[in-house]
């Protein structure tokens, strides 16, 4: 398998500066503006003084001008909570340009962006219906640790996304980057659950060209790499056409579910280069602010 975090990856990463929009940060005080009014130095608004307000915040200049007591409101700056949820089922270990490599790079790049923005990063490694929670990481020093976690992650076993997520730690409002191929019957339940846990969801679907356009001929016994189940089919033009249609319906369904639940959908092809991954796919996350 190709090395996920190679020198090219790091070289490109250093040039990556990206701010990710998160509407309602809920973490500890940090560098991210919160919707809550708080104690930061950044002015937000005025309002009339009410009993119990901190008299230190009264704007005396305004009092002098209007003969009324006004309170200065300041933005409260908090750190964003970002979950990078990585599907490490066996199905992700597929393709000549391996899906797992692309997934790891995505997770790595997102970790970098999150940490670099001063936000808190949670790496959630989904495995066999369980989840490997890592403590929230902040600061660029933690980037190294996140890479280490990702590097030692292997892709094996099955994938029960909902089961895994229910074991996860999504208590506070935040953003979840869900990196997976999306092969599950209850994808909508998964997204719904994340939304239920106050997560803004970005679903990064990693698929290989072989899945998009399979090149099978003759009679093929297809074995599911996760479950070992098999199915035997004679590949004809009509069968492959039917598969294509099924594939497109599958993608359309994912898109529709994401849209329905206000999740961002980003399709990723495993054969995309590092450039394309970082500047093409993730650019959709970037905000102007």
């Amino acid at each position: 398998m190709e090395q996920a975090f190679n020198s090219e990856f790091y070289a490109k990463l250093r040039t990556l500066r990206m701010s990710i929009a998160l509407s309602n940060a809920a973490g500890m005080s940090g560098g991210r503006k919160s919707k809550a009014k708080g104690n930061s130095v950044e002015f937000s608004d005025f309002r009339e003084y009410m009993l119990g307000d901190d008299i230190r915040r009264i704007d005396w200049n305004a009092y002098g001008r209007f003969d009324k007591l006004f309170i200065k409101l300041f933005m409260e700056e908090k750190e964003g909570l970002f979950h990078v949820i990585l599907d490490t089922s066996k199905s992700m270990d597929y393709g000549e340009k391996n899906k797992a490599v692309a997934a790891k790079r995505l997770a790595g790049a997102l970790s970098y962006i999150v940490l670099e923005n001063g936000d808190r990063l949670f790496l959630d490694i989904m495995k066999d219906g369980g989840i490997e929670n890592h403590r929230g990481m902040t600061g660029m020093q933690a980037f190294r640790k996140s890479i280490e976690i990702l590097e030692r992650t292997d892709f094996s076993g099955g994938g029960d996304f909902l089961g895994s997520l229910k074991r996860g730690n999504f208590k506070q409002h935040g953003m979840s980057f869900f990196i997976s191929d999306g092969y599950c019957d209850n994808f909508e339940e998964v997204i719904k659950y994340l939304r239920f846990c106050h997560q803004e969801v970005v679903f990064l679907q990693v698929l290989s060209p072989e899945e998009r356009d399979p090149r099978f001929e003759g009679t093929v016994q297809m074995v599911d790499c996760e479950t070992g189940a098999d199915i035997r089919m004679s590949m004809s033009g009509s069968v492959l056409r039917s598969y294509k249609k099924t594939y497109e319906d599958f993608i359309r369904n994912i898109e529709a579910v994401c849209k329905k639940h206000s999740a961002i959908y980003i399709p990723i092809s495993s054969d995309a280069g590092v450039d394309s991954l970082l500047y093409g796919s993730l650019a959709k996350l970037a905000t102007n602010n």
Partner: protein
Amino acid sequence: MKVLYLWPLALLALVPVIIFMYLLKQKADKKEVPSLFLWRETYHNIEANTPWEKLKKNWLMILQIILFLILIFALMSPYLKNLGKSNQHVVVVIDNSGSMNAVYEGEKTRLDKAVTEATDYVKGLRNGTGISVIASSDEATLVVTSTEDKDEAIDKIKAIQPTLNAGSAYAGVEMVKTMQSQWPAVTTVCFTDSNVSMDDVDGYIVDVYKQKENVGIDYLSHGDSSGKLVILAKVTNYGEKDTARQVTLYGDDQILSEQSVSFGPNESKIVYFDKVNFKGNVLRAELNGSDSLNDDNVSYDIVSEHKQVKVLLMTEKNAYIEKALELMEGISVTKSNDIASFDSFVSQDFDLYIFDCMMPENFPQRGNVVIFDAPNPNLYTEKGSLDYALVQAKSTSITQYIEGMDFGAGYLRVFQTPTWAESFLAADTEDAGVVDVGFYGDYNGQKITVFGFDLHNSELPLKMEFPLLMYNIVNDNVATGMLTQNVVSIGDGVQVNAKADGGLPAVVKPDKTEVELSDYRIVFTNTDAVGVYAVTQSEDRFNGEREYFAVNFPSQESGAEALPSANSDENTDVKKSATADLDLKNIIIAAILLLLAVEWIAYLRK
């Protein structure tokens, strides 16, 4: 519909084997996929959309099983009964007469072509068809009868040998007519180069004639002139192109003379060799070079030393007969016009009496007689007379070489041909049809030839054939020695009259084989090769006295007067190739095997 065999049904047991083999054959490639999530969906979709998809998946196997079932059906040799013609019996008639030795193409003769066509035809017949094979030339030979073994029939067809006989497929067709009642649904296929009527016979002709260049010597004849020979050869170009050939005359294998002759298409010429000094026995004329039929490029004639024959010619003024007789060797002619004194001549024991327009009171009791235009109620009856008629020579022994010759004649006597005689001249009349105006025969040991008209009132003496007719008649009447004829055609019989006081006669054939005859007076029929035959009676056959006769290729086989393609008979179908009932079995089997091979290749490539 019926089938010939049921045993192929046993092969149905192999159908499960095909299915089993197919299952074995269907070894699928094992491929790992990330998830069956989409494939399962696809599988259901296909099943839902096309209920036949499951079957379609195995269309190769289904195709194979269908092909196998068709194969079994083909092996059962199905045929439709009572629908069209079903050949339960076929008769193959192969013409192996002399003309079939002509070249058809390259080295192949017409007979070779006929054998090839017939062999292909028999191969294509449905199994179980009864096959009879007839070889036909001057007579028909049933080579094989009612065999269902195609190989046997083919072997017999291939074994048919060429002959040099005159003839055609006619004899074979006649044989079919007599035998066809014993065969149900018989089809006759006649492989020939000449026309033959297939009236009353269900079948057709396969034409193996092909126009090629051929020049042949029709006959060779000779006469005596002042102790020297006058020899004539009739040579005909049977081809469609101008040609020139050289005729070489041999006497006892020594070259006597040579002449070059040019011909137009289908032109005949008489080649004269005048004053030839030859004292031997065998004359042979030969054409140089070769052509499509070489058997007719040579012709033989025999110069025999018969004893002096005495002929009494009773005539008023007939120079024609006298001149014709002068051409013949060994004849002394006494001429008289005084019929009243005929009795005085009788005592001189003439070998031949010729009465020209007169009849003596006392008919000679010995010697042979030729009568021109005279009544003799004791010998024959006249039915009436004709003022004028076109007379035609029939095919008899005394009209050899001049069959079909015709001439006009006036004031003819119409005869009731006696039972002892055979008609050789006939006139076609409007009222009475064909009537006899000339006959000949043997009456109480006397040979009597009668013409029903005066030569002066006919064109006969002006015809080129007249001397030949006279020669034939005199020869027929005054035969001496052991042989009555010196020149015959292949297949003709030769009367051998040996003296009973010697040993049994023997014939030495051209290939030097010796055939001892079983009787002193016998017709020798084994004339199957062109050449000179020697007849001897002495105990010491090689030193004793010999007489010769020549056997020539029948000239009617050289030409192509009646081609199959010229057949105007509505009932006779002429084809260029024989078509057996299409043997679908073999075609089906071939197609199936081809399809299986293609399918197999397609599978391997996949």
